[in-house]
């Protein structure tokens, strides 16, 4: 199959990561902490979506909305219980707390939800595009036949919708600008009259909503279990940081870089080395950072 198909696969994988990475990076940039429990937020979103899909009437999108709302609610409750009280202490204690919280949530989910994975009942249709001309360059075919599934379209579509909404939110609304301002300098933000607690709460809710969405999408493609989100946290973290600290645009770029590298390296590595595809993704990640030390979308800050 051609490169085109691989790129499609890469875009899909990137989209899953991107949605979650935005949520992760918002917390990173604005609340100023690395939230290692974010994978569990995703798992919780998946569980809520799963419960909704099996108890509520109505199609899957209803469950998605419920998962997003639920994710937001859970996120704010956890933030209030665990992170808000130690907000003033700075990033390191918060990071450690998130590790502890992650352990608690993951095992809590295991305890409540049991060990075996559950699955969403979904129908997928596949659209085959045949008779696309080949465009060979060396051993690589740039075009060639390809297919997309309805699920993939939904995932990419959701990602694009999320990007657009986040962009508008952060640049066009007072709340969004206030969020970014808080990431810069919290005490100045307060002096400007920004209710920082409210803004922080909104960031937590937003991050939870995105985790809910990412959770259901990932779960539909894979399964619902205590590890649904945890197994992706490294990719999410990498995408977010690769993009440039706290920049949602960077996170999106980072996510697609990782998604594409995963797909393309699986396709083109020598046979005995296909298991290395994520290692390759990490190598590329390091390479990118060496070329652009401020991250993909990072700007160099004035030093003196």
């Amino acid at each position, binding site marked *: 199959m051609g490169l085109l198909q691989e790129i499609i696969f890469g875009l899909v994988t990137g989209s899953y990561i991107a949605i979650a990475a935005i949520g992760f990076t918002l917390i990173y940039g604005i609340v100023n902490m690395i939230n290692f429990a974010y994978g569990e937020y995703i798992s919780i979103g998946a569980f809520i979506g799963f419960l909704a899909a099996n108890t509520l009437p109505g199609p899957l999108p209803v469950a998605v909305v419920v998962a997003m709302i639920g994710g937001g609610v859970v996120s704010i409750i956890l933030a209030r219980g665990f992170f808000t009280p130690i907000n003033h202490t700075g990033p390191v204690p918060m990071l450690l707390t998130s590790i502890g919280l992650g352990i608690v949530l993951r095992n809590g989910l295991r305890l409540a939800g049991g060990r075996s994975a559950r699955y969403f009942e979904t129908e997928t249709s596949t659209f085959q595009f045949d008779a696309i001309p080949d465009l060979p360059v060396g051993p690589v075919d740039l075009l060639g036949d390809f297919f997309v599934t309805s699920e993939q379209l939904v995932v990419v579509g959701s990602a694009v919708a999320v990007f657009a909404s986040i962009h508008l939110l952060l640049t066009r609304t007072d709340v969004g600008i206030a969020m970014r301002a808080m990431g810069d300098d919290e005490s100045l933000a307060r002096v400007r009259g920004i209710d920082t607690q409210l803004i922080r709460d909104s960031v937590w809710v937003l991050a939870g909503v995105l985790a809910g969405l990412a959770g259901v999408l990932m779960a539909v493609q894979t399964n619902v279990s205590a590890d649904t989100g945890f197994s992706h946290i490294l990719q999410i973290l990498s995408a977010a940081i690769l993009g440039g600290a706290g920049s949602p645009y960077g996170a999106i770029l980072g996510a697609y870089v990782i998604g594409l590298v995963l797909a393309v390296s699986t396709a083109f590595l020598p046979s005995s080395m296909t298991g290395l595809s994520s*290692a390759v993704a990490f190598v590329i990640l390091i390479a990118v950072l060496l070329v652009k030390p401020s991250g993909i979308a990072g700007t160099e800050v004035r030093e003196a």
Partner: protein
Amino acid sequence: MSVLDRLPSGRGDRALIAGLVCLLLGALFAVTPLRAQLPSALYVFVEVGILFVIYGILVLGLDLQYGHTGLVNFGHVVFFAVGAYATAMLTAQDTFAGIGLGYPWPLGLAVGVIAAAILGAAVSLTSIRLRGDFLAIVTLATAEIFHSIFVNFENIFGGNVGILGVPRPIASLVSDSDTRLVATLLVLGGVTLVTLAVVTRLTDAPYGRVLRAIRADELVTRSVGKSTITYKTQAFVYGAALAGLAGGLFALYNGAVAPGFFTIQVTVTVWIGMLLGGAANHRAVLAGLSIIMGLRLISRFALNVTPVSGDVFASIRLIVVGLILVTVIRYRPAGIWGDPQELGVDQ
């Protein structure tokens, strides 16, 4: 003379003496017919104690890197792993899979330290100029890359089985298990104490002041004429070499290495230990590590007194460990013995 007594000496030296005494005692048990007696109920504590002193070397290296210099190393386990694999591959005899060269163990241990140091140098050469969180991701990525390599290149690294048949110098000298455990604990504990003495000397000296200055503001440190790249590289390489030493000792103690021993879990454990105790304070990070490892072990015994089944207990135990961690940080955000102002943590 007046200068001398104003220097914060003593601290490291007591550790040095204690370490040497431990090594001596350990050697005594190992080479003389002297025998120790150990109630078997304590075995598991000594086992975990041995692991603790090995991880102790790891956490001291990490504290040099992060606690003092501010280098965020999220892939510490990779240096541990490289040290262990290098030692194992050099010394193993008829390993089931992968390479085993059968050289004597002191050579293996030395190569383990050097290999980890070289990897540390390679990582720092490429990445130490990067901003803090990017270094974090590079180290994390390096650890993942090496994990994949160990797993995937079966002919060299033995795949998931790892390298077996590594010599166990202490076990081969002592045949009865009580003495063997005690001797191992003493010898490895001695190495950890000596390490503690060494890093304490380093960080109590003006050397440590430069490291802490880099942590505070690199540009300022450069502006007063310190080559921060050199110091960051050194701190990183020293930390990596210590991890390599820990890895080599681990291989020689366990008799085998496998990817399962070198998961991200190790990195998480030493980070928790360091932050829980209080970064930038060597004794505190060791104490923090002992708390988290002790907690994990002690909590295992609670199964006997809880009414729940083993299955449910497994989850509850981890939940409790997590909650304790969260609670401690809530009330001691800079770690139990950490200095909040030095760490820039608001209480």
